[in-house]
């Protein structure tokens, strides 16, 4: 049975290779059908794996290099728990939706687009399934290169080139940091298997400069992918310029994979040796998450380019996901996982609605589009539903994830964390509500002194004539899915159980290396607390109230808007679009985070 496991990642990669060979001679529809079929097949396999990972780890040792219990693991293993399997299923689900949406999309060289999408998806799936650190790096690079190429798919336009270049250089430098960290760990332990490295580091017990440097480098490298401040600059550029269905994967899963990797590496490798330093690690990661959440929300409120606006909203939410990891408790981790799922559907739907605007109205600028979305009922409805899902209304959308996060933070004594999350939610969702009301309803003033200048970048990176009905259907379905996910309390309970397995380093190591079964997780039930419902009401009412109010920011006194604009100008200026600045920030951030770890872990 376990031989099926690698197929989840391998099938899309194989078909990508095949299409690259013969796609030129295939009719478009045949290539589309092949891609959709293989993704659907992989998705079914992933769901089978999800079903089989209750209280066990599904393992596959490549080439039969399965070590005897207690032996040194020479081979490379896929080691899948429920969090990993669930993530793989989410990736494939979004990939399926994105491919369906891009039916008849990009007519010339259509098969190359499919090849890149399949390679991108297959690499992301491999990344979450693997139990080997270097294997993680390889899949990391594979998905990165596919993503760079997808960003620049419209090479005939100028902006996508710049977006892709910034994206490629930032992420490649991040990957170097990851590789440095891997090399250091290999030098210390002689192993690349996550479980074995964890065991050896724990038995060794030294938490000297090498271990701290490896931890800092791996964390920072993966946080570049996760678009944490100050590593986030590439994300807005890449999202503003990539085709809409590609953005669905970028925002919905790729960014979250960076956070997943931080969590996976911490809980399998460093939890033992750095376990006594949970407090400083938590404080540093929490600070990064909170700054990211707040900055993302503030930047979000100033955007008029809709895809860029959504990109900053993703940054704000990614900050919240990192907060869930930073608390280092299973409940918070489960909260982040659920939040990721609901966010992926809702944000995906928003990007697809943006794509529909590009196709049907040939523009993506909020002020230029005012009232021009009136005819697009389905896109408008999806926009509203997705905004509602992101506002975390009680018992819908991101609510379960949000509530688990708030409760976990309060239990740990971080009473202010729910306020930060609420600020990020309100700030980013209000901007989405504002732009939706302006575009699809035509409400509000025709100008806004706080929005950025009209972007110089080409407005519509050539989304093409496509079957609008199908696009709208996919968009609506994703929005509804985003809302519905939050309604399932059973899912919340399962997520808490899965998170308990995820955070147990010793159980993971025994399962991988000694073939021991996982001990059953404490069966979890999920209760809503008054506190979480109260915060949910705050974010719901806040998002819509602030959103509608900000349609009329022009009516504020000049003195106020001038002062605000002046205060925000430096923040705007930092997002310069210049790759040199971005890498300088990246180096600075890594130095600061690494320095803080070095100072506090001794």
């Amino acid at each position: 049975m376990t031989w099926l496991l690698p197929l989840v990642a391998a099938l899309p990669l194989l078909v990508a290779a095949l299409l690259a060979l013969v796609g030129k001679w295939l009719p478009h529809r045949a290539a589309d059908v092949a891609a959709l079929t293989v993704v659907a097949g992989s998705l079914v396999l992933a769901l089978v794996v999800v079903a089989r990972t209750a209280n066990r780890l599904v393992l596959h040792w490549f080439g039969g290099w399965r070590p005897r219990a207690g032996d040194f693991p020479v081979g490379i293993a896929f080691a899948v728990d429920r969090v990993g399997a669930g993530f793989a299923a989410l990736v494939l689900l979004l990939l399926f939706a994105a491919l369906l949406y891009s039916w008849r999309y990009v007519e010339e060289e259509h098969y190359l687009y499919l090849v890149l999408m399949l390679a991108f998806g297959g690499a992301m799936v491999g990344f979450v399934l693997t139990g080997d650190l270097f294997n993680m790096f390889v899949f990391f690079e594979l998905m990165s290169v596919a993503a760079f190429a997808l960003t620049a798919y419209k090479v005939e336009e100028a902006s996508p080139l710049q977006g892709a270049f910034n994206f490629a250089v930032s992420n490649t430098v991040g990957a170097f940091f990851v590789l440095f960290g891997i090399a250091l760990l290999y030098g210390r332990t002689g192993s690349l298997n996550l479980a074995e490295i964890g065991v050896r580091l724990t038995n060794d017990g030294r938490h000297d400069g090498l271990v701290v440097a490896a931890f800092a480098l791996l964390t920072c490298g993966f946080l570049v992918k996760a678009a944490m401040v100050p590593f986030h600059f590439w994300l807005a550029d890449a999202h503003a310029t990539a085709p809409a269905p590609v953005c669905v994967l970028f925002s919905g899963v790729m960014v979250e994979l960076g956070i997943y990797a931080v969590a996976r590496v911490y809980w399998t490798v460093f939890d033992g040796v750095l376990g006594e330093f949970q407090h400083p690690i938590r404080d540093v990661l929490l600070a990064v998450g909170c700054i990211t959440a707040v900055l993302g929300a503030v930047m979000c409120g100033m955007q008029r380019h809709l895809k860029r606006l959504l990109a900053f909203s993703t940054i704000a939410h990614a900050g919240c996901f990192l907060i869930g990891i930073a608390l280092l408790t299973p409940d918070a981790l489960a909260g982040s996982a659920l939040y990721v799922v609901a966010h992926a559907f809702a944000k995906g739907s928003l990007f697809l609605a943006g794509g529909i605007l590009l196709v049907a109205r040939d523009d993506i600028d909020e002020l230029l589009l005012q009232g021009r979305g009136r005819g697009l009922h389905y896109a408008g409805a999806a926009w509203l539903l997705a905004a509602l899902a992101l506002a975390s209304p009680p018992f819908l959308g991101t609510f379960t994830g949000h509530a688990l996060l708030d409760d976990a933070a309060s239990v740990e004594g971080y009473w202010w964390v729910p306020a930060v999350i609420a600020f990020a939610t309100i700030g980013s969702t209000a901007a989405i509500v504002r732009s939706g009301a302006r575009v699809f309803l035509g409400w509000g003033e025709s100008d806004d002194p706080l929005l950025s200048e009209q972007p110089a970048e080409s407005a519509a990176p050539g989304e093409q004539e496509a079957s609008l009905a199908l696009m709208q259907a996919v968009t609506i379905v994703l929005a509804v899915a985003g809302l519905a996910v939050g309604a399932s309390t059973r899912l919340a309970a399962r997520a808490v159980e899965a998170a308990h397995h995820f955070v147990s380093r010793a159980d993971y190591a025994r399962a991988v290396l000694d073939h021991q079964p996982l001990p059953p997780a404490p069966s979890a039930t999920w209760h809503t607390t008054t506190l979480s419902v109260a915060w949910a009401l705050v974010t719901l009412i806040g998002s819509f109230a602030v959103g509608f109010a900000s349609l009329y920011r022009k009516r504020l006194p000049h003195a106020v808007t001038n002062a605000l604009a002046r205060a925000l100008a430096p923040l705007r200026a930092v997002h310069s679009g210049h790759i040199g600045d971005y890498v300088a920030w990246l180096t600075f951030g890594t130095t600061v985070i690494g320095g803080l770890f070095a100072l506090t872990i001794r």
Partner: protein
Amino acid sequence: MSVLPYLLASWLLVIGLYGIVSSRNLIHLTVCVSVCQSATYVLLLAIGYKEHGTAPVFADVPTSRRTVDPVVQSLTLTDIVVAVAVSALLLSLALKAHDHHGSLDPAEMADLQG
């Protein structure tokens, strides 16, 4: 084991990053990325090095011979493959950018702001 290779790896990384930050030419910038990447090759090979070790090929030497670590060498090879893909992509983007802007200066193509 000498500390020199580790110093060299750090130096290559730092000088490469400095090059990326200060670069005024996309092709120069791509080369700087490669310089950073060579830091990882040096680090990996240094970690696997054994004093007086030979190449890990046992075709004509006894298996008891002291050899350097073959694992890091294969990691380095994989890393080089990755580097080729990234460099090729970056260079092709630089070419296309030159078509659009008539310049290779990253400051000239700063369309994306704020």
